[in-house]
C-alpha cells in the first residue's frame, strides 16, 4: 500500500487510531483517574472531525471494494459532526456513579459503530457493505444495554440484537440471490447486469427490507419505540440520528447506482412506504408522553420524509437527503440534548408532564427545545423549514403531487404534537416545575452547537450549493 491509499481511508484509519488510543488510556490508568478519558476523546475526535474536512484524494481501493468520492467524504463528515455533538452531550452522563468505569468502553463502542458506518458508506461491493453494516450494528446493541441496572436497557439491547440479526439475515439472502443470478458482488458490475428478473426483484425487496429496518420505515419500525425508550438517552440520540442518517445515505447511493435500472419499481415502493411511515409515525407520536418514545416516533415520521426526497431519483433528491440529515442532526440532537440534560439533572424525569412550566425556571433550555421542535416541524426561520421544503421540491420535480399533499398534511399532524411540547413548557402551569439547574460546559457547548446549526444552516445557501455540486441522480 502506498501513502495515497492510506490517505484514501483516512477517516476510518483515524477513527481506529482514536479507538486504540482510548483503549490504551483505559488499560494504563488507575480506577480513579478515568474521568480524563472524556476530554481526551473529545479533543481527539474534534481533531479528526476537522481533519476530515481537509480536501484529500479520492479513488478506489482493494480492487473496487472500497470507494471514496467527495460525496461520500461529505457524508462521513456530516456523521462526524453528529457524533461529536453526541459525545459532548454524553459527557455529563458518563460522570455518573454507574458509568464511571465504563467510560472508555462507551467511546470505543461508539467509535466502532461509526467506523462500521464509514465502511458501509464507502462500500464498492456487497461484501464490504455487509461488513460495514454488521460492524455498525453489533456495538450499538451493546450500547443499548449499557445501563446494567435497568431491565428496560437490557430489553432494548436484546430486541435490537435480535431484530438486527433477522433483518441482516434477510438482507444477506437478497445479496446471495443477486450473486446467484449475476455472478458478481461488485456494485459496478451488478448495476450493469441487473435485469429486473423476478428473482432479482425479490432480491431487491429483501435488500430493501434490511435497509428499511435500519431506517425504521413502517412496517419494519416495531423495534424502534421500545429500543429507543430502553436505551440510555445518549445512545437513543445516536441511534435516531446518526445510525438512521448513515443508513439513509447508503440507501440513496445504492438505489441510484446499483438499482438505477428499476427506478419506477422502487419509486412505487417508496411511495407506499413513505406515505405509511409518515402517517403511522405521526399517529403514534400523538399519544406519547414519554419524551424518548415521543422522539422515537417522531423520528420514524421524519424517516418517511427522507424517503420522499430519495424517491425523487434526481440530484435534488440526493442533495436534499444529505442536507436534511445535517439539519436533522442539529434539530434532533438539540431535542435529545435537552431531554438528556433534564433527565440527568432530575434523576430520570422523562415525561412530558414533568416539563410543564419549564420556561419559568430554565428559559435557555426551553428556548432550545422550542427551536428544536420548530425545526423538526418545519417552521421557518429555523433550518428544518428549508430541509423539508427541499425534500418536497425533490418529490415535486418528479410530479408526485398527491404524495406531496399527504406529506404536507402529515407535517401539520406532526406540528400538533411538537406544539404539545412547546405548550407544556411555555403555557401549562405547574406548581412544582423542574427546578433551575445549571448544566456543565460540555452539555452547554453541545446544545450551543445545535442551536447555531439550526439557526444558520437554512440561511447559508452555500451549504446546499456545495452538496448539490457533488450529487447525482439516477444515471
Amino acid at each position, binding site marked *: 500500500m502506498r501513502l495515497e491509499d492510506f490517505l484514501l481511508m483516512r477517516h476510518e484509519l483515524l477513527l481506529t487510531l482514536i479507538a486504540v488510543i482510548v483503549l490504551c488510556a483505559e488499560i494504563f490508568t488507575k480506577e480513579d483517574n478515568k474521568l480524563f478519558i472524556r476530554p481526551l476523546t473529545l479533543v481527539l475526535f474534534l481533531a479528526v472531525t476537522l481533519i476530515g474536512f481537509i480536501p484529500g484524494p479520492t479513488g478506489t481501493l482493494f480492487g473496487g471494494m472500497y470507494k471514496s468520492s467527495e460525496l461520500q467524504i461529505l457524508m462521513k463528515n456530516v456523521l462526524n459532526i453528529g457524533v461529536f455533538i453526541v459525545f459532548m452531550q454524553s459527557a455529563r452522563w458518563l460522570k455518573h456513579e454507574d458509568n464511571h468505569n465504563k467510560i472508555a468502553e462507551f467511546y470505543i463502542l461508539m467509535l466502532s459503530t461509526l467506523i462500521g458506518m464509514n465502511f458501509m458508506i464507502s462500500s464498492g461491493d456487497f461484501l464490504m457493505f455487509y461488513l460495514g453494516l454488521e460492524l455498525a450494528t453489533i456495538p450499538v446493541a451493546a450500547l443499548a444495554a449499557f445501563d446494567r441496572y435497568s431491565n428496560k436497557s437490557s430489553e432494548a439491547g436484546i430486541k435490537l440484537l435480535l431484530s438486527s440479526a433477522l433483518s441482516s439475515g434477510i438482507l444477506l439472502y437478497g445479496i446471495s440471490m443477486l450473486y446467484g443470478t449475476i455472478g458478481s458482488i461488485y456494485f459496478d458490475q451488478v448495476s450493469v447486469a441487473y435485469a429486473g428478473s423476478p428473482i432479482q426483484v425479490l432480491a431487491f425487496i429483501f435488500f430493501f427490507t434490511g435497509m428499511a429496518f435500519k431506517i425504521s420505515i413502517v412496517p419494519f419500525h416495531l423495534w424502534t419505540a421500545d429500543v429507543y425508550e430502553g436505551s440510555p438517552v445518549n445512545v437513543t440520540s445516536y441511534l435516531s440520528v446518526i445510525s438512521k442518517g448513515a443508513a439513509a445515505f447508503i440507501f440513496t447511493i445504492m438505489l441510484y447506482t446499483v438499482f438505477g435500472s428499476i427506478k419506477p419499481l422502487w419509486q412505487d415502493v417508496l411511495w407506499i412506504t413513505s406515505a405509511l411511515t409518515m402517517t403511522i409515525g405521526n399517529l403514534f407520536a400523538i399519544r406519547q408522553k414519554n419524551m424518548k418514545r415521543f422522539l422515537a416516533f417522531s423520528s420514524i415520521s421524519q424517516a418517511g420524509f427522507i424517503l420522499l426526497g430519495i424517491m425523487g431519483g434526481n440530484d435534488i433528491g440526493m442533495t436534499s437527503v444529505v442536507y436534511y440529515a445535517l439539519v436533522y442532526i442539529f434539530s434532533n440532537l438539540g431535542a435529545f440534548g435537552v431531554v438528556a440534560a433534564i433527565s440527568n439533572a432530575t434523576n430520570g424525569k422523562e415525561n412530558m408532564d414533568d416539563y410543564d412550566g419549564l420556561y419559568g425556571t430554565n428559559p435557555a433550555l426551553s428556548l432550545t427545545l422550542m427551536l428544536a421542535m420548530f425545526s423538526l416541524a418545519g417552521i421557518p*426561520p429555523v433550518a428544518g423549514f428549508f430541509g423539508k421544503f427541499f425534500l418536497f*421540491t425533490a418529490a415535486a420535480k418528479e410530479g408526485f*403531487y398527491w404524495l406531496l399533499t399527504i406529506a*404536507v398534511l402529515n407535517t*401539520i399532524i406532526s*406540528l400538533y404534537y411538537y406544539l404539545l411540547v412547546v405548550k407544556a413548557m*411555555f403555557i401549562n402551569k405547574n406548581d412544582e416545575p423542574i427546578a433551575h439547574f445549571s448544566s456543565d460546559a460540555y452539555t452547554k457547548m453541545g446544545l450551543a452547537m445545535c442551536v447555531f446549526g439550526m439557526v444558520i444552516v437554512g440561511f447559508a*445557501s452555500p451549504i446546499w450549493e456545495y452538496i448539490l455540486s457533488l450529487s447525482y441522480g439516477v444515471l
Partner: protein
Amino acid sequence: MDFLTLFIVVPILTIVGIVFARNHNQVRWIAAAGSSVSMVLAAVVILRYLAERQAGNLSEFLFVADYIWYPSFNIRYTIGVDGISVAMLGLTAIVVFTGIFASWEVEYRQKEFFISLILLAGGVFGFFITTDLFTMFLFYELAVIPMYILIGIWGSGPKEYSAMKLTLMLMGGSALLVVGLLGLYFNSSPDGGLLTYNILEIAKVHIPVETQKFFFPFLFIGFGILGAMFPLHTWSPDGHSSAPTAVSMLHAGVLMKLGGYGCFRVAMFLLPEAAHELGWIFLVLTTISVVYGAFGAIMQKDLKYINAYSSVSHCGLVLFALLMMNKTAMNGAIMQMLSHGIMTALFFALIGMIYGRTHTRNIMEMGGLMRVIPFLGVAYVIGGLASLGLPGFSGFVAEMLVFVGSWQHTDTFHRVATIIACSSIVITAVYILRVVGQLIFGPVREPWYHELEDAKWFEKLSVGTLIVGIAAIGLAPLWLSDMISVSLGPIVERLDMVTLIP
C-alpha cells in the same frame, strides 16, 4: 441598503432593543418607538410611491431590489411594491402602532409578549414587500407561528384550544400552499429553461389549463383559510376571542388580509384560466361566508365573538369581490381590506378597553356605557356606523365599489350572489345596532360603573389614530382608490385576456 428592507430591519432592531431593555417601561417605549418608525417608513413609502407614479414611472413594481439566494433553485430575495402592497404596508403599520398602545399595560412576561408581537409584525411586513414566492411563503409561515405563543400564554377563555386550532388550521393552509407553490415553480418555464419563483416572471408564462386547474384549488384554499372562507373559517371565532387585544387587532386587521392578498396576487394572477373556470365554486363558498358570518354574529352574546364573526363576514366579502374579477370589484376588495382592517382593529381595541373596565364581555350584563365612559362610547358608535357602511367612513366606499363592481356581471349566477351578499348589509345593521343600543345607550347597568375611568392617553392615541384612519379613507378615498386601480391594471388585464381567447 435598499429602502424596503428597512421594513424588516426595523422590527429586528426593535426586538434586539427589547431583549436588552432593563425595565418594564423601557420595553414598551422601545416597542412603541419601533412601531412609530415603521409608521413613518410606511408614510414615506406611500409618498415616494405616489411621487414616482406622478413622474411617469410605469413599471409594475417600484423600489425593486433583487439578491440571489439559492442559485440552483433560483430562489431570490426579491422585493418591490406596487400600489396595493404600499396600501397594505400602511395598514399594517397603523395596526401595529395602535396595537402596541392598546397593550400598554401588559405585565405578565412583558418582554416575550412584545417580542412575539413585533416578530409577527416583521413577518407580515416581509410578506408584503417580497415578490419571490419562496421568500413570500417563508414570511407567511413566520407570521403565523407567533400566534400560538401569543394566544396560548396571554389569551383568555379556552386559549390553549383556540391557539392550537388556529395554528393547525392556518398551517394546514400553508401546507396546501407548498403544493401549489411547487406546482407553479416547476411550471414556470415552458421550454425547459431556468425555473423561477418570481411572480412577474411566472405571470409571463402560459401554464397549460389542466395544470392550472390542478393547482388553483391548492393555492386558493390555502390562502382562503387565512381569509376565513367557509367552511374553513372555524378557527376564526375561537381564535379571535381567546386572543389578547393586540393580537386580535393584528390578526383580524392584518393577517386575514394576507389571505385575500395571496388569493389575487398568487392564485388568480398566476393561474387566470383556472380562476375563471373554478371561480364559481369559491364564489358560492364566499357568499355563504358573508351571510353565515353575519348571521353568526347575531347569535352571539360575547362581544369578541360578535366581532369575530363580523370579521368572517367582512373578509368573506373581500374574497367575494376578488372573485368577480373586474376592476371595480377588485378595487372594492382592496378598499374593503384596508377599511375593515382598521375598523376591526378599532373594535378589538375598544372591546379590550371595555373588558378591562367592566370585566365581562357579555353584552347582556353591560349597559349605559356612554354615560360613564363617553370617549370609548363615542368611539364604539363610530366604529359601529363605519362597519354598517355609513357614508363618510371607509366602509361605505368599500362596499359601494364591491357591489357596483359585482353587479356589472349580467348573468344570473353573479347577480343572485350579489343580492345575497348585499343582504348582509341589513344583517350587519341588526347586530351592530343591537350591540350599540344594549351596550352603549340605555340605562347604566351596574352602580359601580360610575367609578369607571375613561380612556387613558395611550388608549386615546390608539383609538384616535384608527378613527382618523377610517374617516380619512371615507372622506377622501380617491387618491387611494386611484393608486390601487393603477396597480390592479396588469392583474385585471391578465384575467380579461383569457376570456378573450376563444
